[in-house]
């Protein structure tokens, strides 16, 4: 790095800091700056680089920057070096199979990597004319998702849910299902979630094989982590680092690329943490006033272009199960399919706890998924909606007061509700039921027969954690 443009740190406020530069060489917004901090740990002295990113120009040659690491040990008057460009991360085939932090350093203890190309993490979203307009369903083999909120190939899917309803498990399951049968590359961004989960995922990917090629899933995957332990600046930018790597695969190789982000809410949260320190007035519910812009800048870049498709699956935490909270609400509008996880369903022991009435997808329309699939999906939702409407009456007057038709609806709805549960591959060690893959045709047929009342005679319990409807019949015999 050239040492041409050097400034001095004038103020440190938590994870933001101010620096004074000569007015004629003021670093541009988003430029990366480096501070070398000398640290002594057990009589061993070493130099550590702290990266910062310019966020604001304060006038008079002063800039305010967000630190992407811990600001511990930064002193006023310390030298701060402007690198002249935004943070750059390594991209390309060399990055596959490795784990990075947001500035592109490897963190998997396998040594540094040699790359031919690095790319800045800030970039304009693709032009309107470059966007791909193809719409195709992406089969997951998970009944409830394929039926009611199918993923779009090259589209964006969001998994919404409060604390502990199973967002991360579904993300990991989707990685296991999609990456295993996926020929292209995968990118995983760990944003402000548990470090342990990142570790689990990494180990699992090393074990999992892609089809029967003998290659591990990790060989086709790049992982970027900025977990809970990192300062807000890191959590704010780690998604962009992962996205930059994914974009390169899309633009250069044209292969289908999967981008998993867990958890987008942490990105908004980190933004709100630095926002006040940057001197912005807090907006609704204490969030940054720029919440919508920040989300838009990130989401607009996650898209498929004519050169290649990026299919992204994002987990989005919903604080206090409140879907009207500004952070999840701003993410909603960007997505092709939304999968809402509901606590009351998780409490019944039904996993995945997908809310069949609140979850939806742009492509649940006859012209995309076909007339038959559409009709079955809507029928299932009608039955469940009727059941939901009747719930208060049942709670007060009891089921005997319902009309005969409604009783049938309630009985079927209870079966459908349970049939929406499914065993996961990644959860096999916890529930000791092997995971099941149900093809879309089987899913549609099973639910249609259920709606038609062909399986009214089976006990409700037979529908828990089975694959196709025939499996439920088999289970009923065992009970």
């Amino acid at each position, binding site marked *: 790095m050239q040492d041409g443009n050097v400034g001095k740190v004038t103020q440190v406020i938590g994870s933001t800091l101010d620096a004074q530069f000569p007015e004629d060489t003021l670093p541009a917004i988003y430029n990366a700056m480096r501070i070398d901090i000398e640290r002594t740990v057990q009589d061993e002295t070493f130099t550590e680089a702290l990266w910062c990113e310019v966020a604001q120009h304060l006038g008079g040659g002063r800039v305010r920057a967000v630190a992407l690491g811990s600001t511990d040990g930064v002193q006023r008057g310390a030298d701060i070096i402007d690198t002249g460009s935004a943070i750059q991360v390594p991209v390309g085939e060399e990055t596959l199979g490795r784990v990075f932090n947001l500035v592109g350093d490897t963190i998997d203890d396998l040594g540094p990597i040699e790359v031919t190309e690095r790319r800045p993490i800030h970039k304009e979203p693709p032009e309107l004319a470059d966007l791909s307009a193809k719409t195709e369903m992406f089969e997951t083999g998970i009944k409830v998702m394929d039926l009611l909120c199918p993923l779009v190939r090259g589209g964006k899917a969001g998994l919404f849910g409060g604390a502990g309803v199973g967002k991360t498990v579904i993300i990991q399951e989707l990685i296991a299902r999609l990456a295993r049968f996926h020929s292209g590359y995968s990118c995983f961004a760990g944003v402000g979630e548990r470090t342990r989960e990142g570790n689990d995922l990494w180990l699992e990917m090393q074990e999992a094989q892609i089809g029967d090629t003998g290659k591990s899933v990790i060989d086709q995957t790049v992982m970027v982590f900025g977990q809970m332990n990192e300062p807000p600046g890191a959590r704010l930018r780690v998604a962009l680092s992962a996205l930059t790597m994914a974009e390169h695969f899309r633009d250069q190789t044209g292969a289908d690329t999967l981008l998993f982000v867990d958890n987008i809410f942490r990105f908004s949260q980190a933004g709100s943490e630095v926002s006040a320190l940057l001197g912005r*007035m*807090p907006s609704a519910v204490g969030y940054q006033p720029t919440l919508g812009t920040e989300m838009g800048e990130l989401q607009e870049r996650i898209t498929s272009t004519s050169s290649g498709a990026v299919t992204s699956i994002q987990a989005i935490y919903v604080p206090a199960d409140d879907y009207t909270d500004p952070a999840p609400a701003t993410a909603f509008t960007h997505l092709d399919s939304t999968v809402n996880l509901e606590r009351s369903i998780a409490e019944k022991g039904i996993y995945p706890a997908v809310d069949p009435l609140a979850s939806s997808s742009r492509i649940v329309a006859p012209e995309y998924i076909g007339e038959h699939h559409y009709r079955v999906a809507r029928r299932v939702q009608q039955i469940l909606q009727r059941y939901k409407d009747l719930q208060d009456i049942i709670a*007060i007057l009891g089921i005997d007061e319902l009309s*005969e*038709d409604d009783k049938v609806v309630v009985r079927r709805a209870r079966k459908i509700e349970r049939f929406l549960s499914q065993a996961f591959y990644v959860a096999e060690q916890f529930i000791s039921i092997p995971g099941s893959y149900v093809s879309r045709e089987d899913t549609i047929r099973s639910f249609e027969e259920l709606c038609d009342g062909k399986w009214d005679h089976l006990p409700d319990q037979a529908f828990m954690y089975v694959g196709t409807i025939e499996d439920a019949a088999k289970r009923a015999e065992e009970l």
Partner: protein
Amino acid sequence: MANRRLLVKRRKAVRNIRKITRTMQLIATARFQAAHNAAVSRRPYTDKLAELTAGIAGAMGELEHPLMKVPEKEERRALVVLTSMRGLCGAFNANLLRTAIEELDRQAEKDVDSEVSMVGGKGVAYFNFLDRPMAEEITHISDLPSFDEVEPIASALIDRFSRGEIDAVDVAYTKFISTGRQRPVIERLLPLTQLVEGAEGDEDGRQVEYEFSPSPEELLDELLPATVRIRLFQAFTDAAVSEQVARMVAMKAATDAAQDMIKRLTREYNRARQTQITLELLDIVGGANALE
């Protein structure tokens, strides 16, 4: 955050339901008292009549009467099912209809033709839903059935039995055992067989010798149909009492459930209200601080 206005609306709805169920409970209690008193005051007459008939039948030894004749082979049978006219009485109708349908299926397996006389709108609706045939639909019996209402039904059955059109008549109703217990039962109305079996003397085991005038045959011609009528009437009365008890219990449970739900909704509403106030305060304080 739960929508406050929605919560208020729901709570209002549940309150209205509670008002209705509580009223229904009170009405059912009053009706139960009335029906119970009627049934109790009628019992001495019914008992005495049964005793008398049994006495005469016993005294006559071998007796032949059309209403007591057991057909060689049961082929056609009538089943009178006593359901309620109105709903909101819990599992009262469901339990009885389940028993009745089990019986019908059992008889169908034995190749016995059953024709159903359905009393009560609820049973009629259920059989229509199941597409099961009914020979007769009776939906005009009052909450406190009077003898005049029951008598034509009984007479019609007696006539048809006497003519040999049907070989047996059963009645399915909810027997009132105590306020805490009612059980759906199926009892045989015709032919009158249990009458003779239960006619082995009175409480002391003595066989009373009667002298008859007019002749016992003539007496029985009068008494046996009366017994059948009274028995059917008794079934109607029992069903009515049981229905009121069932409604009382169901409405009490509903009122309690509504009460619980109101409590829950109130708590949810208060929490939502407090959350909103806190958030607004935070916004105001945050905004004011930022301006300083």
